[in-house]
């Protein structure tokens, strides 16, 4: 038997989480140590898995299949392809940097890291799932700890409301999708939840037309698809920094990824019928998200709505039903994940020192924390789609794909990018440059070396992907091949 690297990646966090929960609460040093070690192991193994994938061979690799509930044709079936592997890497990165940034959590760090790591296992599990039941199993594990993480460690003012709203929204989405999955199970007549077999089930056109929206919107809720995006800015803002990073960086990709894997790939005929109108919802995401971000005065809400806008681009790519669109979406999921994690890290660092996120009250932070300012500017440029950074690499193919499907949508969506550029530049000027208000003078210091390391890692990835996309683009393209095959080369 080969080294089960994916299983180890999936279960490292939860094992670490349980160990952490069993440690005595006073041993904060040990707790953080175990957390850092586990996240480093997960990151390292994700990197190893990433670079050991054989692109020319394509398809699902590092596959492992163990019967789990044979009566239902359910198995523990994992594997990665060109679309999921970057997301596994992304999760590893965000988890590692999230731990670095949460070093200062002092209220019940044991529970904090414990729940965070259980969440991480859920996320990893969804990305590598090749079994529909297993996917739901991990999906729910990823959703629930969010409630406690936000409600306990979140921003006092809105945490209870936001945590409940987020949990209920996501739970509704996932259970609705679950009914769709059960319908697929019985309609296929194959008596299996194995997604590779369900891909070949040949569901009737009528069945696909009815159930595609159920599944796609069910997962689309977590992907922040308009009009079900409402939970996301509130949730992002209320969450503590590391959780916002996880949430916007990874969890929203979970929704998009599951919508792709279960919705589009299992019900391609339904996708072809419905996506041409869903593209307009995605367009609303892009433009409306950017416009709302523009008028926010709370730093974190700006980033929250920018996530809605950027996830709209991912959905646009899906809805374009074109090869370029999917490649772009695949890259955008990774790029946005890293970028938004960076943004939320920066917001957290500013807030921890200024104790306010009101943009008009901030200013001059570049002098006090130059590294943070540089990192934010890198992220900002990525967000505007500046060539030479990962955002361009991802967004350019999306626009190509959308242009080929609906030129008018591409033009309007491009306006969203202009708005993005505007609000990013406003923030850079107001928060990082200009005079620093007197109340902050003196007691605002620089960030810790751990924070700098986290920002460095995230910025490095954004630049590396922008300058040298060849380490990811061919991989994603190989994953898109199978989507295109299912869509019949549409």
């Amino acid at each position, binding site marked *: 038997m080969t080294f089960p690297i994916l299983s180890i990646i999936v279960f490292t966090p939860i094992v670490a989480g349980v160990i952490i*929960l069993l440690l005595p*609460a006073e041993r904060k040093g040990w707790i953080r140590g175990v957390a850092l070690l586990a996240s480093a192991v997960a990151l390292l193994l994700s990197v190893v898995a990433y670079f050991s994938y054989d692109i020319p061979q394509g398809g699902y690799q590092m596959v492992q299949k163990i*019967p*789990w*509930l*044979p*009566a*239902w044709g359910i198995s523990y079936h994992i594997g990665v392809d060109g679309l999921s592997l970057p997301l596994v890497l992304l999760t590893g990165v965000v988890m590692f940097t999230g731990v670095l940034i949460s070093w200062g959590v002092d209220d*019940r760090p*044991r*529970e904090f890291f414990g729940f965070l790591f259980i969440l991480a296992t859920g996320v990893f599990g969804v990305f590598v799932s090749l079994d529909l*039941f297993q996917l*739901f*199993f*991990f999906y*729910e*594990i990823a959703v*629930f700890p969010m*409630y*406690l993480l936000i*409600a*306990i460690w979140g921003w006092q003012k809105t945490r*209870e409301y936001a945590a*409940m709203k987020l*949990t*209920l929204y996501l*739970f*509704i989405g996932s*259970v*609705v999708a*679950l*009914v769709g999955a*059960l*319908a697929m*199970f*019985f309609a296929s007549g194959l008596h299996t939840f194995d997604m590779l077999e369900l891909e070949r089930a040949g569901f009737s056109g009528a069945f696909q037309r009815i159930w595609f929206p159920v599944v796609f919107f069910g997962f689309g809720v977590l992907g922040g698809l308009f009009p079900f995006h409402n939970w996301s800015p509130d949730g992002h803002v209320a969450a503590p920094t590391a959780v916002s990073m996880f949430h916007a960086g990874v969890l929203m990709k979970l929704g998009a990824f599951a919508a792709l894997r279960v919705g589009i790939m299992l019900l391609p005929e339904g996708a072809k019928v419905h996506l041409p109108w869903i593209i307009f919802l995605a367009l609303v995401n892009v433009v409306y998200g950017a416009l709302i971000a523009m008028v926010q005065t709370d730093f974190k809400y700006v980033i929250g709505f920018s996530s809605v806008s950027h996830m709209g681009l991912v959905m646009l790519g899906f809805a374009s039903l074109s090869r370029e669109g999917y490649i772009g979406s695949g890259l955008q999921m990774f790029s946005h994940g890293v970028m938004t994690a960076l943004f939320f890290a920066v917001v957290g660092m500013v807030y921890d020192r200024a104790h306010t996120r009101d943009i008009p009250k901030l200013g001059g932070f570049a002098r006090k924390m130059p590294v943070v300012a540089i990192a934010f500017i890198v992220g900002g440029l990525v967000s505007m789609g500046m060539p030479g950074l990962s955002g361009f690499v991802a967004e350019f193919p999306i626009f190509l794909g959308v242009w080929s499907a609906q030129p008018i949508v591409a033009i309007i969506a491009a306006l969203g990018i202009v708005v993005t550029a505007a609000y990013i530049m406003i923030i850079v000027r107001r928060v990082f440059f200009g005079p620093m208000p007197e109340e902050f003078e003196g007691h605002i210091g620089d960030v810790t070396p751990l924070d700098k390391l986290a920002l460095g890692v995230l910025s490095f990835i954004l630049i590396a992907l922008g300058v040298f996309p060849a380490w990811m683009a061919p991989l994603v393209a190989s994953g898109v091949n199978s989507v295109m095959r299912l869509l019949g080369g549409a």
Partner: protein
Amino acid sequence: MFLELQFVLPEIGLLALAGVVIGLDMTLRRAARRSLGWVTAAGLAILLGVAVWSALRPAGDEILGGMLRADTLAASFRVIILAAAMLSVLLAMGVEGLADRGEAYALMLVATLGMCLMAAAGDLVMLYLAIETTSIPLYLLAGYLKRDTRSTEAGLKYFLFGAAASTVMLYGFSLLFGFTGETRLAAVAQSIAVGSMPRVLWIAAAMLVLVGFGFKVSAVPLHFWTPDVYEGAPTPITAFISTASKAAGFAVLMRVMLTVFTPAVAPYWVGVVVAMSVASMTLGNVLALTQKNIKRLLAYSSIAHAGYALIGLVALSPLGVASTLFYLGAYVITNLAAFAVVIVVARIVGSDDIAQFAGLSRRAPMVALALMIGLLSLAGMPPFVGFVAKVFVFAAAVQRGYIWLAVVGVLNSIVGLYYYLIVLKVVYLYRSENEAQPLPVTAPYKWALGLTMLGILVLGILSGPWFDWAIRAAGSIY
């Protein structure tokens, strides 16, 4: 004869154990009587082992002249009931007024005996006797704390409602017997199938019988007693009624409805059960939203769970029976975990108000974690057993084309999640003045919590073999 008695070994054991406990209660000094709980629990553990052994043996048929059916379904329910009884006895060991009363343990054993017979009954007479053997000790136990007015009120209320439901059910039995001339369930079914009874009458009989069973499982509209009795009864007894008694109720419900009123005549009563299921889920969950007392909250949640379990019944399929059985196993173990935490907390703070749970996560992080696992499992979150159990019943509904029913169930589970989260919010988020004080957990509760947590995780993650077992049990009916 001897082979037939082999199947009822656990029942014989229960009777003997009850005798032993009463004997010891009379001879032991008061201080020593506290350990009677350990005797009872250990005895039940052994009987549980015997019951598992008997459930794994190939299923037999009618025994003791058709009074009992020695099939896998009966044996499986017996395992659930005995496990629930054992855990409830552990829970009773720290409650003043119950812990050192041998008669309370003996009454629990007799009720358990009745429940085991309910699950196996193959004859109307046996069925009625079993139901009453279960009910009468439970009435007494609900009102056991004589000095507590709420407990006496609960006892009386349970008795009055129970007696009324029981007479209505008995009327249904008498109709069945009067027209078919048979008391054995299988013979009654055959007789109905050949048309010995006018349709109106057997539909009436089905409805009357449903009243009695609906009361036992606390399904809407026969749920009225539930919140008051659950709140007033001593908490271990509440746990016992809400788990073992409900499971036994489902055992007879499934057996009678699916074997006497067979699929050929099923369309006439299924609609009613669907309505009961939807009403139970919806009403239970919605009313649970506003509860301030954890026992009342769990009472309404248990009404809702009866609704989910009924989904498996209306599917009228082997998968449906198996999923209901699995659901009940999951529910029983999870609900006992929740009640264990309630007792652990209430013993110290002296109240069942949800507000008293504030600061629990700081005061006793492990107890809080156990409560979280229990409530999340009730809400249907993986990796806990509630998730797979819910998926199975919804799957049974979808398989039979009841997609709308599955959707109703799904929407209800969201409402459920909401109020479980409210409790968790109090536990994890709110502060209280007494959070620095320790919250001692005595040995019986450590056992109860440990066993239930183990069950929730093992059944939830390695569900395969258990579900196969449930499918085999469903073969007893189909």
